């Protein structure tokens, strides 16, 4: 399938993360409807069961909820929830990689802190 889904992570996780990103970026707002499993599977050319799995993770985490007969909607307070869970995952998904690379190339902790200050200014 031709699209931007990468090879590095399970597809269903990529789907749920993508929806989380959209929530974080206000591309989709609370109480708005998200694309259906079928729409997602057709758009990304993936198995509908995979798309469903991605959506169900978010339902289990209380990010999305189902309106019977209509579809999946973003919960009130979802953005907060996503931010919280991403903060928890930040250390594993991003920080460890940066620190490991820093160690590899000989950047000290203080070097790293200085770089962060420089970059965020």
């Amino acid at each position, binding site marked *: *399938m*031709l699209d931007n889904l990468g090879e590095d992570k399970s597809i*269903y996780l990529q789907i749920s993360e993508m929806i989380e990103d959209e929530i974080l970026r206000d591309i989709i707002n609370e109480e708005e409807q998200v694309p259906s499993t079928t729409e997602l599977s057709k758009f*990304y*050319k993936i*198995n*509908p069961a995979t798309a469903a799995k991605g959506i169900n993770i978010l339902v289990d985490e209380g990010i999305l909820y189902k309106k019977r007969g209509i579809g999946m909607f973003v919960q009130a307070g979802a953005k907060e929830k996503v931010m919280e869970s991403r903060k928890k995952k930040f250390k594993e998904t991003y920080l460890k990689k940066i620190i490991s690379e820093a160690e590899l190339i000989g950047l000290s902790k203080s070097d790293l802190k200085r770089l962060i200050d420089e970059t965020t200014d």
Partner: protein
Amino acid sequence: MSTLLGKNIVKKYGKDTVLKNVDVEIETGKIYGLIGRNGAGKTTLLSILTAQNPATEGTITLDGEPVWENEKALSHICYSREISQVTMFGPNTIKVKDYLATAKAFYANWDEEYAKELIELFGINPKKRINKLSKGMLSAVTIIVAMASKADITILDEPVAGLDVVAREQFYKLVIDEYAATGRTFVISTHIIEEAASLFEKVIIIDDGQIIIEENTEDLLARAYRVSGEETNVDAAVKDFKTYHPESIGRNKVVTVLADEPVDGFNGDVQVEPVPLQNLFYAMCVDGRKEA
């Protein structure tokens, strides 16, 4: 949910054993990918499962009833494979429309409207003769028969061989649309693996007449890893695991690992990356037989 079950299938052609005690289970309502090298036995297995070819040993049942010469079972199945452009009498001069008319006569649930839509979509001239079709059009006709048959269990043997990338994408979209709308079972054998991998809920890998993998695609990929690094580190890290296709360049070694279950990490100073399905397949099958 129905199950098309093949048990202890052995197929011999003379002294040559093409399928060696194969067990396979096709559950309805899923999209399966069947991958294997040329000559691994894909087509033989599929034609045996659909009673188009007799097994030397073994049983093939649909919901417990044998498929062989069984109208009820056969009415749920469509096996569409590449049409030969030559017969032993010369070129295959049957017209596309006559070929499709035969399909319409035999497939109980044939959808003529859908077939007409697909003929237009693929740009086929129904009056053309089979031997005059390009490779792409030939594949398209195979696909049209499979899709319009509306069979519960639809098996396609290398449907995208001969299709350019645009047509291939059209095909994948067709399958998803149809699956989303009807929940039909699809079993698709293909050599173009990575493109189609995200379509397959389950994948079956056949190598040298035996099934080496029959598993949910994501579960399989969740336990596959590409481990690389300095060779002694790599060897130490993977020593308790099943490994495939080790390669070295200088002191850098790369090996594909298939663990029994997903692992949290490997011990030692090694790089660990996920493995795409095509690469996993390659690693598992490359060091087998030497033929193409």
